[in-house]
């Protein structure tokens, strides 16, 4: 069993890198877009908030696999053809952005309205009210659910193998195709996913502790 795992490791390396690349792109993309749209949802006018609301709810309500197939197999009919890799990244990003919007809105909504008013009364402009008053407080509420969303992205990235992207999951399947020994490979694969997410969890706990300290100390 151990021998089978050691044999497989070099074949998995590229898939592992690809899984990290997909996850990284999805996390970064959804963070940037989600922050913008979530902030717009929290403070913007209703005509802007409504479509954002609909988008966030829709993205979260569709099964991830349906979203991936729609982008990869469906969009070409509309003239937009993406490679399996970018189709997968786009679909996962849409999905994750829905979550980030909700997390951002919740984190901002948890800040007492008096904070915004106090920031107004000392003459801060909107951008500075966010920068100096709202975001520093909201980040503590944002981090725990966001870290969950990040580990979710890493796990969800395994689905991209279904459109032929050779990620960690696909690489495992390919090795199994040669060795016909599924068990050691799946255990190894699980161990790698656990290792990645455990690392993220530990890092996030440190981060949270730091932000908590700045308020409690």
């Amino acid at each position: 069993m151990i021998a089978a795992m050691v044999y497989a490791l070099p074949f998995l390396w590229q898939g592992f890198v690809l899984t990290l690349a997909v996850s990284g792109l999805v996390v970064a993309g959804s963070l940037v877009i989600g922050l913008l749209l979530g902030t717009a949802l929290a403070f913007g006018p209703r005509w802007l908030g409504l479509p954002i609301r609909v988008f966030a709810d829709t993205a979260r309500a569709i099964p991830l696999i349906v979203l991936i197939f729609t982008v990869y197999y469906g969009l070409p009919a509309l003239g937009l053809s993406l490679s399996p890799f970018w189709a997968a990244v786009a679909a996962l990003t849409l999905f994750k952005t829905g979550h980030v919007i909700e997390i951002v809105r919740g984190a901002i909504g948890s800040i007492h309205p008096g904070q915004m008013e106090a920031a107004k009364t000392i003459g801060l402009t909107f951008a500075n009210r966010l920068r100096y008053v709202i975001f520093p407080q909201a980040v503590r509420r944002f981090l725990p659910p966001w870290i969950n969303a990040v580990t979710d992205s890493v796990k969800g990235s395994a689905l991209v193998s279904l459109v032929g992207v050779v990620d960690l999951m696909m690489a495992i399947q390919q090795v199994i195709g040669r060795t016909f020994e599924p068990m050691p490979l799946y255990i190894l694969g699980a161990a790698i996913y656990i290792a990645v997410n455990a690392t993220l969890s530990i890092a996030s706990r440190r981060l949270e502790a730091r932000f908590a300290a700045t308020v409690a100390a």
Partner: protein
Amino acid sequence: MSPPVEAPPVLAIRGLVKRFGETTVLDGIDLDVARGEVLVVIGASGSGKTTLLRCVNALVPYETGSIVLDGTEVAYTAPNSGVRRSDHALSAIRADIGMVFQLFNLFPHLTARENVALGLRVTRGLGKQEARARAEHWLTRVGLADRMDHLPSQLSGGQQQRVGIARAVAMEPKLLLLDEITSALDPELVGEVLDVVRGLAREGMTMLMVTHEMSFARDAGHRVVFMDAGRIAESGNPREVLANPQSDRLRRFLRRIELRTE
């Protein structure tokens, strides 16, 4: 205390009307605040006092009327125009209007010093050292020289409110709005906060103050205004108005307040 000398008012409110849906909260308010004047607003809850202050600071929009601070229309580009000023223009006007809140609204992630220095640095554009020095000056003034590095959560209610006052006056506003600033305090902490306000009054700070502290209104206010159902029902010298209320409404209101404080 004698009323200040005649001069153009710092704040001039004309025909101010504010509605929340069907409810008319402010029903045509005309009010001037002279430079150096301490104007005390009293009235039952729901009479529109707090909304009046919030309109002056453009925290809420209003339907019609005009609010002019030192020659500048506050929330809108012109009286009754409905064209609201840009965020930048509003921010610049608000920088000249200080406000102290009933629930303090200190920034919980910043120390006392940082709470006071933030506006000085970002809005007034002072350097780090100067903002810090001015923040320390004002915190010392309100008796918190030994609490500069404390977070709001580490301060008593009275201390938090004094930080709130320091944060507002450090900006050197033309007008200071005080919204029931002692209502959330334990009774034994009210005195220390009102003493700070008395000190500011003596130095000529122009103040528009909503309060239920009648003894303070009597001995520190230049003028008192009694609001009822969104209108100014009575106004004048605090000693006279509070000693000889003309309307049943004010008589009843004063009786209720006295029952509560005794």
